[in-house]
């Protein structure tokens, strides 16, 4: 069962009235969609509002989603349209007219724009989160760090990682989980424990 099938299961649950399932999709894609929209509007506060708006539009349009394309492709299309309509309504132009697609926007590196307009509080919080994750990663044993890096940065499957690390798939699964859990344990005091946490 691949990533797309997981999304499809969550979508079907949301279509059956499970808002929590849609919340899991939001947790998964909020930063990627926010990065995409920020590429259009070049303003972090606006991008965050538009990201929320895009998710709400997606939620309302869920009955029309039939799974012909991947959920994230559909979501990104909604995000792009939301951003373009926002720019049009305010008499502003999109970065490029027609050739701007989701993949192009997602891969575009424009970090400085985001940091310039972020609030000091958010900026500090973001830096702390990044620092904790990086420090935790460096403290991990080699096998755990390698497994997590191959998965998250290189995007390898468990089978591919097992081949690279010359170990069973079950061991890969265990190493990735343990690595995540060590980093998450260090992050939790920073993130808070309320049900509607900030992340």
């Amino acid at each position, binding site marked *: *069962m*691949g*990533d*797309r099938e*997981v999304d*499809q*299961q969550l979508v*079907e*649950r949301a*279509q*059956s*009235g*499970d*808002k*929590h399932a*849609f*919340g*899991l999709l939001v*947790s*998964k894609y*909020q*930063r*990627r969609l926010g*990065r995409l929209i*920020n590429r259009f509007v070049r303003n972090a506060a606006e991008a*965050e509002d538009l*990201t*929320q708006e895009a998710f*709400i539009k997606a*939620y309302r349009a869920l*009955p029309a989603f*039939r*799974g012909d394309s991947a959920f994230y492709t559909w979501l990104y299309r909604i995000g792009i349209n939301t951003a373009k309509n926002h720019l049009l309504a305010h008499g502003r132009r999109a970065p490029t007219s027609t050739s701007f697609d989701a993949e192009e926007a997602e891969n575009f590196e424009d*970090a400085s724009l*985001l940091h310039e307009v*972020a609030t000091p509080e*958010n900026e500090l*919080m*973001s830096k702390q*989160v*990044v620092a904790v*994750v*990086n420090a935790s*990663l460096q403290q991990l044993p080699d096998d755990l760090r390698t497994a997590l890096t191959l*998965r*998250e*940065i290189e995007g390898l499957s*468990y089978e591919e990682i097992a081949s690279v690390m010359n170990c069973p798939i079950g061991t890969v*699964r265990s190493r*990735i*989980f343990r690595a*995540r859990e060590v*980093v*998450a344990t260090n*992050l939790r005091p920073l993130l808070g*424990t309320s*049900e509607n*946490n*900030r*992340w």
Partner: protein
Amino acid sequence: MKQEISALMDGELFEDEAEVLLGKLKRQPDGSRDWATYHLIGDVLRQPEHIRCGFTESFHRRLQAEPTILAPRQHKPQRVKHYALSAVASVMALALVAWLSMQIGNEPAVQMANIQQKNAVRPAAYQVNDYLMAHQEFSPSADVQGAATFIHTVAAKQ
């Protein structure tokens, strides 16, 4: 459950396992927080410069204000319907071909049988035999037959 969440977000669970786990996640908020935290870790590792905070809390309030969607699942039933229609169409097509082939195979045989029956009864009985009898002496074997008749006649006189 945490290890299962980790595997689920990597797309490494079987469908039935995922279904069970998603049901558990709905009932247990801790699981949802782990899901969110693990995704945050992945995003930090991939794009550390794009991490922002304050999103989920405010969005959660907006989402709760939305009316709950109750739409029938469209993807799988459509696929099942599609397969069912294809299967029915295939069976119908097969039945049509079989029926046509039976029609084509039987009809000429019946017709030919009728024709043969008519030809066999009438000409053989009334036409062909009379014709052959009338022209017997002109047939290739007329000499023998004629001689036989003559011999028989002479023998009868003696």
